[in-house]
């Protein structure tokens, strides 16, 4: 009983907890995915802001280049002065409308840096087709991206009204320095933002977070043209939300678990207290019954002696004997129910025991107008516990006495094979067909007009059947048209 209870109480606690936990974890995971998504969007938004900053920077540079390249003429000295003074122009070239190079001068001396420029940038106007392709369209100015040397190089070109093309090679180092200067410094963000050029080399990075060597960024963003081969990457820790969601979740589940446990313990304690109370009561009844048994035995003994000594007609003594017998049976029933004991079987004659019991009952039955007709058919001895059998028959006769007054009782014994059958049939009101199964349950009492007002404990039949089964036999109710017929089977 107890381990089962504990398991039940454990289940009461564990099952809802497990359900709750499972649901919360799933919800948390869903939420985390959502948060992750939103987080990424937020990071991308930040990167977009940076891209805007850089795009503005490029736009400013574009305007100043545009301004610088609006030249009234292409006098070499003026152009060289421009290269010397302009912060963003490393070198530049001028092509006349026919595509012929005007600067660096095609004829006449060139400086060493101009010579370098011709070597590294010559490809641009040697392959003019490509340059014109990218520079065509509605516009008369724009960026031209050119991969050479350290990789990415920018050329800003501008076609003047006469059709000459002026193109400036942007000082790559200067552009990068300006970009670095425009970006935030070390501790500006909690994550880590890195700007990588077209080769994937990090140019600049900031933020407090230190990503692992192989860590993938949360999100990346390509810069706007003309720097569209550059990438911004955002690195950040992912476990943040987990940690945020984990503790409240755990506390919630813990609180519910605690509440359930307290509730379970409360119910368990209530339950065991009731059980204990019931046990105490049973034990109390036992004790009392036991205490009642000894004086009652003496009363019965002396009443019977008195009955023998006094003239037969003395009815008062008979009543005392009958009532004390009834009380004895009651106490025997109570004790038997509370403390089932082992049987002491001994071979004996069933018929003679039955006769003795019937004789004991005769005065009481006669008082209720009941006559007993006994037909004994046993021939061989059967092993049984005399007290137990006496109690079974006594209980059945006592029932008949209570519920079927004024009707005869027929008791028959017979032996078939190894079984001894004792049938006790009355002709009273009988037992309603639907209740036949219930009458053997303890404390069950048929409640109808007839039985109202009849006292009883409701354990007589229970004990009778238990005793029969203890013998290896059974007590059953036989289906009959009128009255109630019980059959007791005993193995030989």
């Amino acid at each position, binding site marked *: 009983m107890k381990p089962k209870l504990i398991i039940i109480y454990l289940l009461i606690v564990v099952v809802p907890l497990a359900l709750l936990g499972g649901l919360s974890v799933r919800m948390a995971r869903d939420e985390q995915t959502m948060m992750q998504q939103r987080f990424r969007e937020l990071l991308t938004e930040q990167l977009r802001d940076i891209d805007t900053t850089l795009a503005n920077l490029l736009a400013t540079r574009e305007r100043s280049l545009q301004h610088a390249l609006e030249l009234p003429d292409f006098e070499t000295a003026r152009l*060289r002065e421009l290269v*010397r*003074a*302009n*912060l963003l122009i*490393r070198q530049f070239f001028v092509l006349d409308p026919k595509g012929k190079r005007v600067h660096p001068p095609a004829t*006449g*001396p*060139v*400086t*060493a*840096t101009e010579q370098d420029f011709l070597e590294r940038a010559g490809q641009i106007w040697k392959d003019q087709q490509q340059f014109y392709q990218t520079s065509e369209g509605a516009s008369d100015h724009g960026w031209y991206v050119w991969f050479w040397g*350290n990789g990415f190089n920018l050329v800003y070109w501008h076609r003047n009204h006469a059709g000459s093309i002026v193109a400036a090679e942007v*000082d*790559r*180092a*200067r552009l*990068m*320095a*300006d970009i*670095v*200067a425009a970006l935030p*410094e*070390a*501790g500006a963000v909690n994550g880590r933002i890195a700007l990588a050029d077209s080769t994937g*080399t*990090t*140019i*600049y*990075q*900031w*933020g407090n977070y*230190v990503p692992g060597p192989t860590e993938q960024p949360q999100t990346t963003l390509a810069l706007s043209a003309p720097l569209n081969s550059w990438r911004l990457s955002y690195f950040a820790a992912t476990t943040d939300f987990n940690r945020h969601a984990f503790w409240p979740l755990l506390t919630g589940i813990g609180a519910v678990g605690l509440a359930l446990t307290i509730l379970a313990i409360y119910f368990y304690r209530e339950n065991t207290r009731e059980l204990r109370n019931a046990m105490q009561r049973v034990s109390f009844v036992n004790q009392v019954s036991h205490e009642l048994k000894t004086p009652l035995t003496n009363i019965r003994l002396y009443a019977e002696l008195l009955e023998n000594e006094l003239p037969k007609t003395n009815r008062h003594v008979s009543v005392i004997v009958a009532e004390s017998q009834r009380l004895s049976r009651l106490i025997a029933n109570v004790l038997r129910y509370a403390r089932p004991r082992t049987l002491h079987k001994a071979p004996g004659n069933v018929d003679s025991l039955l006769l003795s019991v019937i004789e004991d009952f005769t005065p009481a039955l006669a008082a209720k107008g009941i006559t007993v007709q006994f037909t004994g058919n046993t021939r061989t001895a059967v092993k049984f516990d005399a007290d137990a059998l006496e109690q079974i028959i006594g209980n059945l006769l006592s029932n008949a006495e209570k519920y079927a007054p004024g009707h005869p009782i027929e008791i028959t014994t017979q032996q078939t094979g190894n079984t001894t059958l004792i049938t006790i049939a009355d002709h009273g009101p009988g037992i309603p067909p639907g209740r036949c199964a219930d009458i053997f349950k303890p404390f069950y009492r048929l409640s109808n007009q007839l039985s109202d007002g009849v006292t009883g404990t409701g354990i007589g039949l229970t004990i009778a059947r238990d005793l029969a089964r203890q013998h290896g036999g059974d007590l059953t109710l036989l289906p009959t048209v009128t009255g109630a017929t019980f059959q007791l089977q005993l193995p030989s």
Partner: protein
Amino acid sequence: MAGGTYGVPRIEILDHTLTNFLQTSYHFLTIDLVSWCLVEQKGNQTVMQNKPQLLAVLALALATSVARAEQIKVTTALGRPVLLADERQTTYLKIGLTGFSGTVMERRTPVNVAIVLDRSGSMAGEKLRKTKEAASLAIDRLNSDDIVSVIAFDDKVQVLVPATKVADRASINDAIAHLTPGGSTALFAGVSKGAAEVRKFLDRQRMNRIILLSDGIANVGPSSPSELGDLGASLIKEGISVTTIGVGADFNEDLMTQLARRSDGNHGFAETAQDIARLFNAEFGDILSVVAQEVTVRVRCGDGIRPIRTLGREADITGQTVITTLNQLYANHQKFIMLEVEIPATADGRSRDIASVEVSYANMATHETDRLRSSVAARFTSSQRQVLDHENTDVMAAAIELIAVINNDHALSLRDAGKINEARAALIDNSVFLDSNAERYKSDKLRGYKAENLQQADGLSNEVWSTTRKGMRGGQYSREQQQSY
């Protein structure tokens, strides 16, 4: 001053009124007069023409004694002012620029300096401690008109002190004191942020400079010597120089010297942490004694004269024209351009205009742009003896030193290629070359460099090469740029 005695025949002030010109110092005029007299005795025709003008100027200057405004001194001289006739030959033309004394300035040039410090992990300990000390001490030398910013970088960049007037020294020193070592080396970004800080108060009337101190190889962002050099070249266009101080044996001296060279800054090699304070001190000595900025030198060679190359300081050579710029001149300190020119065969007894030089610069004492002009001519003789007698020992010694720098660099390349023995032989050859010329031109500087080369010849083994190489680069750089330290 020996250089002035030959080949400074004419000084012309173009953009000044007579009054302005009279404010030129006695000192300056006197020297020129002496040089004129000496040259005159040698019968140079160009000088003769100018004699009355100079005398008049001297007389006026003596008579008026007006308040004097200093000007830088330009000395243009040939290694051999007297050349062998009837022979195509090369000689060296030295254009020396000497800053005037800072004591005459009403107040010294205010500075706008960004100190960019490497805080990468390798700086931990003694190096970072000394650096902090040196930076704090250096800032103590500034006054409340000066502007300073402090930037620290590892793999990221942090502006510890944004550009600010040196008023609140306590908080600046506090920020430096709390500098802790970090990760790797984002050198390019550090300098870029330093430049951004300098740019906040960029002013032609200030001395604008970045001082970069690093002990490691740049490994985040652009990291090649050429990229950093390009950055320097772009900063000089704004008048910002970068001085680089390399600490220990692990920094990239090529990168550090390129950055300094292209931006006309200084370069120092701190072999141990103890050297950091010395270099900071010397650098601030330079910074606080600036007398001229944005110095542009244009040399126009005479007919038939071909400029071949410059030794040391780089210059743009286009046809007959040579242009170079210097960002700063310091008080009483000479920087020069050494130009190798080819001179066509010329008949005995004739003379030839070799070059005219125009120098413009921002005078930090008067806050005006001054333009000075000078020219130089050579005389031709068939006497070998005369040629050698008239040799300008100052110019020749300076040219020899720069040639020795080229030899030294050649030895460095050999050693880089793993040819230790060849490198050693080249260094020993170089020391012999320096030794014989030191005797000939009585030059202590050449003697000093000879000893350095010999010492370097002993430092080519793998264990010490890294340090020797830094010493070689540093030595080359300071000679090429006529660094004061």
